[in-house]
């Protein structure tokens, strides 16, 4: 038997074992992916099923009479007069007219609490928009109280004994009566996307947090992108190779691993205490988060620049381009997809960050929608945190809905990053 034949025999005898090893490795990979996928699925189904009720809102249809005398208003009333008028009365009258014979003080209180406290402002805004309504009878879909909402959405079990139920029999009978006559309807909850925070679950919206996140990220991007790209270009293309530059490199890599709360403390000490900038503003939030995203973008940009083949640089230099021209006309455009991907991932990280913002006062109850980067505001993940801590049951669904909105933003940002990479990626 020749040597070659012998080798073949050895290979053949070990073949089975090698195939087996490959199979085990492959199946281990599949199992781990399956586990990760399963966790993701559990998380998403949990969040989505809890969040769905938040996107609808129960409404009560009532016909209210805007009596000019009772409201002390007329067609020519000024905005201040309308603001000061008591719009609770017409709603209360409408409720009393709907359910006769409620006389006891406590029962009346129960009756009035069928509609949200936001209902009076709803009515006021209608009158502000059209003062001609004064003196007329109008039919309005009022926002229902969160307890009514919970009953309609079956979050409160109607079959429980009265003592264990948050909504008592009397109130439940009113709700069921209105339900039977079609005066209770559910509609898409536009308010959730157009209002700021509120202590009433039925009035709470996420617009303030979305805009807060937007302004914060705007500041972060405006600060960190130019600085990080400039730093990456300098370190990759211009910096001499010496100890000092090595030291800086090590520090940038370390900075990427610093816990984010440390940046919050820095922000508190430097920007708020030393420069006395305003607390809770997206301006400071943005500055603090840009410190955090800087190293991420620098590292991503450097590896993107490094991946540009040297032949490109040599060709440009050979044709007489200066170093600066070479970098900005040839290297940078070729590296841009990688840089942008890194930037978007850094931004997505900043969007989900809460810890550093704790320190600079962005964990706050803010109802007014921020108009600029100097206004007090909060951000999406902090809104999730605040709602998760609220005692009212209605906030449970709002919390999940806010998580969902945050996830949608994160997923779309990551999708854009992938799309950009796919689109501009060049094979060398």
């Amino acid at each position: 038997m020749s040597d070659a034949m012998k080798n073949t025999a050895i290979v053949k005898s070990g073949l089975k074992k090698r195939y087996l090893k490959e199979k085990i490795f492959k199946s281990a990979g599949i199992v781990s992916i399956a586990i990760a996928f399963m966790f993701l699925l559990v998380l998403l189904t949990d969040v989505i099923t809890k969040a769905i009720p938040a996107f609808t809102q129960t409404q009560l249809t009532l016909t209210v009479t805007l009596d000019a005398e009772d409201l002390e208003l007329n067609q020519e009333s000024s905005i201040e007069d309308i603001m000061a008028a008591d719009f609770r009365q017409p709603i209360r009258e409408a409720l009393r007219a709907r359910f006769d014979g409620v006389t006891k003080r406590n029962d009346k209180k129960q009756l009035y609490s069928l509609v949200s406290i936001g209902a009076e402002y709803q009515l006021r805004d209608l009158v502000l928009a059209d003062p001609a309504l004064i003196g007329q009878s109008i039919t309005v879909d009022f926002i229902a109280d969160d307890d009514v909402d919970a009953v309609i959405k079956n979050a409160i079990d109607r079959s429980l004994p009265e003592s264990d139920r948050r909504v008592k029999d009397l109130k439940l009978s009113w709700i069921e009566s209105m339900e039977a006559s079609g005066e209770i309807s559910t509609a898409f909850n536009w308010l959730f996307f157009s209002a700021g925070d509120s202590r009433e679950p039925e009035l709470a919206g996420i617009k303030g947090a979305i805009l807060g996140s937007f302004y914060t990220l705007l500041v972060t991007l405006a600060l960190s992108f130019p600085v990080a790209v400039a730093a990456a270009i300098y370190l990759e293309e211009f910096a001499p190779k010496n100890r000092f530059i090595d030291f800086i490199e090590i520090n940038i890599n370390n900075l990427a691993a610093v816990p984010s709360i440390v940046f919050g403390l820095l922000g508190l000490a430097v920007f708020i205490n030393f420069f006395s900038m305003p607390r809770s503003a997206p301006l400071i939030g943005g500055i603090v988060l840009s410190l955090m995203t800087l190293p991420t973008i620098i590292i991503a940009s450097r590896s993107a620049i490094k991946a540009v083949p040297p032949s490109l640089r040599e060709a440009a230099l050979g044709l007489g381009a200066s170093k600066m021209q070479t970098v900005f006309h040839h290297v940078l455009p070729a590296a841009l997809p990688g840089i942008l991907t890194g930037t978007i991932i850094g931004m997505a990280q900043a969007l989900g960050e809460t810890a550093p913002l704790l320190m600079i006062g962005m964990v706050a109850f803010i109802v007014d929608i921020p108009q600029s980067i100097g206004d007090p505001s909060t951000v999406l993940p902090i809104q999730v945190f605040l709602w998760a801590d609220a005692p009212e049951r209605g906030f449970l669904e709002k919390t999940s809905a806010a998580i969902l909105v945050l996830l949608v933003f994160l997923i779309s940002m990551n999708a854009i990053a992938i799309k950009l990479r796919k689109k501009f990626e060049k094979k060398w």
Partner: protein
Amino acid sequence: MKKFKLTAALALLSAGSVWAAGRDYISIVGSSTVYPFSTVVAERFGKSTTFKTPKIESTGTGGGMKLFCKGVGVDSPDITNASRRIKETELTMCHENGVKDVVEVLIGFDGIVMANDIKSHDFALTRKDIFLALAKQIPAEKDGELKANPYTMWNEINPSLPAIKIEVLGPPPTSGTRDAFVELAMEGGCKKFDWIKDLKKSDKSAYKSLCHTIREDGAYIEAGENDNLIIQKLQKNPNALGIFGFSFLDQNADLVKAATVDAAEPEFESIASGEYPVSRPLYFYVKKAHVSQIPGMAEFLKEFTSKKAMGDEGYLTDKGLIPLDEDKFNQVVKDSKELNPMSF
């Protein structure tokens, strides 16, 4: 890109000018226990007036005091919420930093409850039971001697309690609820031993460490600051008791039921009258110097101290605040109207 840079620059400029011009909204910091009440008033105030809605940060009582006492001026908060009375040292710190006149407003009371799953056993506890169940060390047979807490079952402490394992879910040491619970329930039970009561006079720090130290052998489980989470966990584990604020019991009366403490049910009336022993006062503190500086301060104070808000049928009681009795209420309204500064 150019356009974007321009807008970014403009935005920065406008922000700068806003912050130089001062502040046109009220800034409130402080206790996370008062936060749910303070926010309700702020929201209504913002909606029903032309002033901006106050900004409320939940920093904890101690953190709020630090920020509040930093000085006078638009970059420091106007009001701080507290789930305990301001300490003398804190007031001195305020004075040293130029915050001369501080107005104290007592808004009401908050009860702390121990509750379990609604389908589970009924608990009738005394503060002594609570202390014996949760303290790290308890008195041994002889006066003045201590032993490590040996109890694992409730009925070992008191035969009338159910025969289930001692398992209590409660807040971590950073929480104000925990401070109050330890002070009111644990210390309250601890004092029932005569020799320990005497110890308070002779060695205060030993007394405190004995009465305030919670066991660490797994019977007390730190469940985080989030009270909703504790309620969820109670439903999964019917044998466990949870510690949280009265407003959470009020909102979740269909899921959990509270243990009685010293034969008093944690209810509205019993907490207000002081019959239920584990309750604490809630305050907020106002910088007098800011009332004329920040638009809307006087009106906000008026809204907060109105009958409509913190009266015994006000909207804050719907959120679980235990209101003041009439005399105290009238006093508070008078003091806050006249802005009478407090002192010790």
